[in-house]
């Protein structure tokens, strides 16, 4: 079932060889070929714009009110590229190597190498579009370092890199709309894939304003619909982010790969109560200067500033003296959970740890005083100078923290806790980004291909744009070259009719339940099961239990959910119900995948597979494969394994002590 179609030859020439020999479609034929793009984040907007430029007839869909709202917009830190502008020894190979290693040796070498190869083109393209990246006084592009790499290869636009890149792609997309090459369908949600003779030939979408179902034909369908972190209910994802498009594809035959690989980001603003609807990230860069600690005494009630130095436990510095507060995301997250589970957590919920800038403020204050040659300053005066420096470095993050919590992080330590942030798993795709359903493709976070078991910071933006601007234009053409003989299929075709009927009856069924509990309440309960049993730490018994609980919850959902309003109007509750119904099925598969993977790697930590000192224990002999799940029926999947072969990189154990 799984043919990754990786080109032969040495790693560094595979992509060049592929491009040199793939089939092309001439301009006159491109005009006759229709392509559907679902989702308008970095992957979707860049793909739709680029395919429109090439001359294909493109239809793009997003559930938001405008393509510019997709959640790529919220990415803060930056985008990696192997430009070596800093002359610090970066290269395509190093970016490739760091990504493979960061992914804990669970990603495909050929895909990751291609990603590193096109990374530089992305920066060039974005600059040409007018993306205002940060610059040095000489007028050239600025770089910063990011999560665990030894070179400076991250390009950024203050703390809003995702926003600026997405606006660049959005503007390119709107230009194609104006030229008539792309038709944009906002406030539309894809609810099913239409297959004819085994090939994806279109979608059924719901116009979320009118409530009507629509049929759309495409010679190919591209899913650029992001990740599924919202299965946990609380995550850093947007409220609307969902798995529905990918899940429908999965149930139509597209294998779902490594669903249990979830990234939990260590520095997020903690949950403040049951009302919590989403979590907000505080950039990883804060760990450069902040020190993480909890009180040494269980159930401590004093204010943070009243707890003396000797009664604080700087647990990361204690456990990982070599890396201290800068251990990778997965390690930092698990350590915070461990302290809170033991009863040392802080804040109202006791599910938080401190991130303290007091030392950094004094340190910077002294440096400033030294620069100005001022001696005999009082501590208060030094602190004033230090706060200015910290403000310049992290001001916007500190402001955001204060807005949300009402606390001033210049005076009291931040309270932080890990939160679900990104999903490395997704639809299985081959080298051409095609799923196991011919004609159906997955791009960006929606696919599984490049990040293995753990994604490095500033690599998500890179992958989304690589797929959309530089990979799919070639690989799609290679397949569409075969389609030039096939005319567009009328949407009156029986397959469209039957699929639309199925969607309508599913919606009808949801509406007719007329139970007592809201969609949101089910989603919260699912999230709680997932977070407790398939979150930062997993074990055999917990996962088995979670599977049972999710199956029961699904039954309860389908017999007691209440959706007010009607079908033929704007009905946000119905939209949510459609999404939560799919999360309920995905959650079960995630637990199954986590249960099957008897090892710990990257974001997947099994408590029953750890070293004596509590670190992840990988099992390369038995689990060096991509777990691709084929849907067989309710609660039933078949596992297909794609072995991962490392020709260039030699896998080793990660250690941060």
């Amino acid at each position, binding site marked *: 079932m799984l043919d990754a179609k990786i080109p032969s030859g040495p790693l560094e020439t595979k992509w060049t060889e592929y491009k040199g020999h793939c089939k092309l479609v001439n301009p006159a034929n491109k005009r006759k070929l229709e392509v559907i793009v679902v989702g308008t984040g970095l992957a979707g907007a860049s793909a739709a*714009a*680029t395919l429109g*430029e090439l001359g294909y007839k493109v239809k793009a869909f997003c559930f*938001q*009110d*405008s*393509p*510019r*709202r997709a*959640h790529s*917009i*919220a990415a803060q830190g930056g985008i990696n590229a192997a*430009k070596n502008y800093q002359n610090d020894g970066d290269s395509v190979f190093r970016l490739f190597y760091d990504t493979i290693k960061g992914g804990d040796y669970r990603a495909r070498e050929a895909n990751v190498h291609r990603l590193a190869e096109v990374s530089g*083109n992305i920066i*060039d*393209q*974005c*600059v040409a*579009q*007018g993306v*205002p*990246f*940060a*610059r*040095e*006084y*000489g*007028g050239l*592009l600025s770089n910063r370092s990011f999560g665990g790499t030894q070179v400076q290869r991250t390009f950024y636009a*203050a703390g*809003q890199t995702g*926003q*600026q890149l997405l606006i660049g792609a*959005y*503007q*390119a997309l*709107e*230009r194609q*709309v104006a030229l008539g090459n792309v038709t944009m369908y*906002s406030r539309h949600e894809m609810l099913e894939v239409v297959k004819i003779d085994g090939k994806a030939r279109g979608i059924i979408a719901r116009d979320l304003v009118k409530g009507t179902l629509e049929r759309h034909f495409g010679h190919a369908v591209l899913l650029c619909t992001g990740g599924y972190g919202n299965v946990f209910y609380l995550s850093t994802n*947007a409220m609307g982010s969902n798995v529905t498009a990918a899940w429908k594809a999965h149930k139509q035959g597209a294998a779902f790969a490594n669903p249990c690989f979830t990234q939990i980001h260590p520095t997020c603003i903690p949950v403040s*109560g049951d009302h*919590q*609807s*989403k979590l*907000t*990230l505080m950039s990883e860069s804060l760990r450069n200067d902040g020190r993480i600690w909890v009180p040494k005494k269980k159930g401590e009630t004093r204010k943070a500033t009243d707890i003396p130095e000797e009664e604080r436990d700087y647990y990361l510095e204690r456990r990982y003296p070599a890396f201290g507060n800068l251990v990778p995301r997965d390690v930092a997250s698990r350590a915070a959970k461990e302290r809170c589970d033991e009863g040392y957590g802080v804040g*109202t919920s006791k599910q938080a740890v401190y991130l303290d800038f007091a030392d950094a403020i004094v340190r910077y204050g002294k440096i400033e005083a030294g620069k100005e040659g001022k001696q005999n300053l009082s501590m208060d005066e030094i602190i004033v100078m230090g706060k200015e420096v910290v403000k310049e470095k992290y001001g916007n993050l500190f402001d955001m923290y204060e*807005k*949300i*919590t*009402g*606390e001033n992080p210049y005076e009291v330590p931040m309270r932080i806790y890990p939160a679900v942030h990104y999903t490395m798993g997704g639809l299985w795709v081959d080298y051409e980004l095609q799923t196991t359903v011919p004609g159906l493709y997955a791009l960006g976070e929606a696919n599984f291909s490049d990040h293995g078991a753990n994604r490095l910071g500033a690599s998500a933006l890179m992958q989304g744009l690589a797929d959309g601007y*530089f990979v799919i*234009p070639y690989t799609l053409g290679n397949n569409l070259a075969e389609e030039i003989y096939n005319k567009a299929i009328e949407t009156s075709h029986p397959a469209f009719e039957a699929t639309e009927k199925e969607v309508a009856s599913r919606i009808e069924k949801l509406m007719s339940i007329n139970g007592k509990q*809201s969609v*949101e309440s089910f989603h919260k309960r699912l999230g709680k099961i997932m977070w407790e049993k398939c979150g930062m730490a997993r074990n055999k018994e917990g996962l088995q239990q979670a599977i049972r609980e999710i199956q029961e919850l699904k039954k309860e959902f389908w017999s007691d959910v209440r959706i*007010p309003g009607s079908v033929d*109007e704007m009905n*946000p509750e119905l939209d949510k119900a459609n999404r939560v119904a799919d999360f309920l099925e995905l959650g079960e598969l995630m637990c199954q995948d986590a249960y099957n993977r008897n090892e710990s790697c990257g974001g997947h930590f099994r408590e029953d597979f750890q070293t004596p000192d509590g670190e992840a224990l990988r099992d390369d002999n038995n689990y060096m494969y991509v777990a691709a799940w084929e849907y067989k029926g309710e609660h039933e999947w078949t596992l297909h394994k794609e072995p991962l072969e490392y020709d260039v990189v030699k896998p080793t154990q990660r250690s941060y002590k």
Partner: protein
Amino acid sequence: MEHYNMNLTVKVWRQKNSRAQGNFESYSVKNISSEMSFLEMIDVLNEELIVEGKEPIAFDHDCREGICGQCSMYINGKPHGPWQANTTCQLHMRAFKDGDTIVVEPWRSAAFPVIKDLMVDRSAFDRIVQAGGFVSVNTGNAVDGNSIPINKDAADASFAAAMCIGCGACVAACKNSSAMLFLSAKVAHLALLPQGDPERKSRVMNMVAQMDKEGFGACTNTGACEATCPKEISISNIARLNHEYLRAGLTAEK
């Protein structure tokens, strides 16, 4: 920070669809924590409405971290509510006290018709961008990123304009429903960069023409837009827009 709970009266604009006549409805919400966000307070109210068998309040929202620009409502007569430089989703309930009455309405502008309750149609903004808010460069055309040095001050000013989140609060705050701050931010973003130079004249002419076509009002320099903007986009961008428009008009060749 001391946390407290409060009971509130919320008066919300309810409107079934774009054709229906809307009206205010009053709801009382109890035990709202000062730690909640404003939208979480509405979540609580909606949960109660659903359990009671009523229709929840429809409102636009997505990222809930102040960057997607989707949330859009007047709160006590101010777009995005009482805090400065803030979006609705980042407004928190400690801005209110026990016993308060809060009035919530959708954006009011002929160019932003109401879809349902607090949701409006802002597709006019997309069409303004379609008219010229881009650099015409196809994928693959680009030269090396560092071959175009850009003065840091210009790059920073361009970024400050490009931070616009397209929420429409500027239009909602303006007594004329003018979209000048939104439009000027886009024109300034691209006019300040060498990449935007070749299309500088046609861009500003076409985008202004589209803005007028969409039914937005004219600018009378009241400054409500700047005062309301969650991203603090400067009104000086409007001066730059006028400069660009005049320059394009005076030197037009066709």
